[in-house]
């Protein structure tokens, strides 16, 4: 079976939770939510996932489906306490991200009088300073991958370093997955590094969609293909309506 770009992205999102064990996989965005549930159904069965609301589901449920049997309760107040507790790896979205992993979901332009008011910082400051954090960005471009974000909602490596080792000891940016590629911050100064390009994507294409100097080391591998079992789970179980294709065009 040959996988679509959206399916490659779902699996790349799932991979961010590999090795996490028994923690909450918190996800925003279709491919990210599907990724968390796919990871739970395959290589990371200890993960906890929600129904998108306040319920921890007993099993990973299809996208948009009712919770079914429940194994726990996580209303917003408990979710916010869990952020402080730390047994959680969140995959957020970002309207802007820079080379150190600072992200913005608050406002474009001058904060005092924005050109475009977005959501507000939401939980991004707490998430990034307390929990492992990854990002899912469905459409990579130089408008999103910018030299400097307008408002720092999610804390990047330079900001964390400035806080010092004690205050930043739980800061842990893991990966960024986009429609083109996978990135991490595995460089000495925590700059963004290209980990893999999705099948059919050239490294130059990724560079062209990146508004800062991207670290590219040696030959960049391809993002892995889904297994047949992963494709079956995505297509027949988790997302039979193909909502992933609305987020990442086939």
């Amino acid at each position, binding site marked *: 079976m040959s996988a679509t770009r959206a399916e490659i992205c779902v699996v790349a999102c799932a991979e961010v939770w590999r090795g996490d064990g028994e923690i909450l996989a918190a996800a925003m965005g279709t491919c990210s939510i599907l990724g968390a549930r796919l990871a739970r159904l395959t290589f990371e069965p200890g993960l906890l996932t929600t129904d998108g609301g306040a319920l921890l589901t007993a099993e990973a449920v299809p996208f948009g489906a009712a919770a079914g049997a429940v194994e726990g309760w996580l209303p917003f107040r408990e979710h916010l306490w869990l952020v402080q507790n730390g047994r959680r790896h969140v995959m957020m979205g970002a309207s802007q991200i820079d080379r150190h992993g600072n992200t913005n979901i608050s406002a474009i332009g001058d*904060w005092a009088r924005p050109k475009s008011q977005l*959501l507000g910082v939401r939980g991004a400051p707490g998430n990034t300073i307390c929990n492992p954090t990854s990002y899912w960005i469905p459409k990579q471009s130089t408008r999103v991958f910018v030299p400097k974000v307008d408002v720092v909602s999610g804390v990047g490596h330079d*900001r964390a370093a400035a806080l010092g080792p004690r205050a930043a000891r739980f800061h842990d940016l893991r990966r960024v997955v986009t429609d083109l590629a996978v990135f991490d911050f595995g460089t000495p100064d925590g700059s963004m590094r290209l980990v893999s390009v999705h099948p059919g994507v050239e490294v130059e294409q990724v560079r062209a969609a990146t508004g800062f100097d991207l670290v590219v080391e040696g030959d960049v591998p391809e993002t892995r293909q889904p297994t047949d079992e992963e494709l079956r789970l995505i297509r027949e179980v988790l997302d039979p309506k193909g909502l992933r294709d609305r987020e990442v065009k086939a």
Partner: protein
Amino acid sequence: MGVVMSIEEIVGSLESGMTIGIGGWGSRRKPMALVRAVYRSALTDLTIVSYGGPDVGLLCAAGKVRRVVAPFVTLDSIALEPHFRAARQRGAVEFTEYDEGMFMFGLLAAAHRLPFLPTRAGLGSDVMRVNPRLRTVRSPYEDQEELVAVPALTMDVALVHMDVADTRGNGRYLGADPYMDDLFAKAAGRCFVSCERMVEPGELGGPPQTLLVSRMHVAGVVETPDGGHFTDRGEGRDEAFQRHYAASAADPEAWAAFADRFLSGDEAAYRKAVRQWHEEGR
């Protein structure tokens, strides 16, 4: 003990310049009937403390708001709240922007008469830059850790919406999430509860842990059937109407028509207009 009041009596007891907390979360179990009454009132210069949704949007649209204190303003199924966006982009409202967890700590502090509570949330982010009055506090213990000292989010009045309440002001929620409504009730000098359905004392029913708001924190209660409309009250949101709201908000002429049709009369007129709108199958 809470007393049964009318929407008009509750809003009539508010004053311009007040800090008003609004319960719920985003576009979920918001006290919209009370918000609509504030929208129609002569009140102005308000500070609104809220996990913001269409409550913040409507009051911004009416020019009632001097300052918004919030970690976000969203319609949930529609990410961005159009009236709040417009007000921010016009420079029409001041904004105290907190992290979601910081905001909860501010409520917890206010609810428990503490001047602040410490948290890591906010450190390193621009929340510290855009709120220059925020201070940090250093642990007096060996770790010496420096944390954000979130000031208490005290408020003059809180407005919350319950699924069921009794005539004394005890409130129960039926959905999966209490949000922070009990904290709002405790953090405010006075809390007013609206409810979908009002019962006699002792008839609230349900598991005791769903009895969220106690009459000891409630100054007045009002029955407002459909009073959470169009936000989610556990059985879902009126998504079609929310889309109509958001689409209208994006255009001045369409908004004038929306306001004329739905917001120019009292709550009974609103309910009737919404019913008719649905019957038209729009």
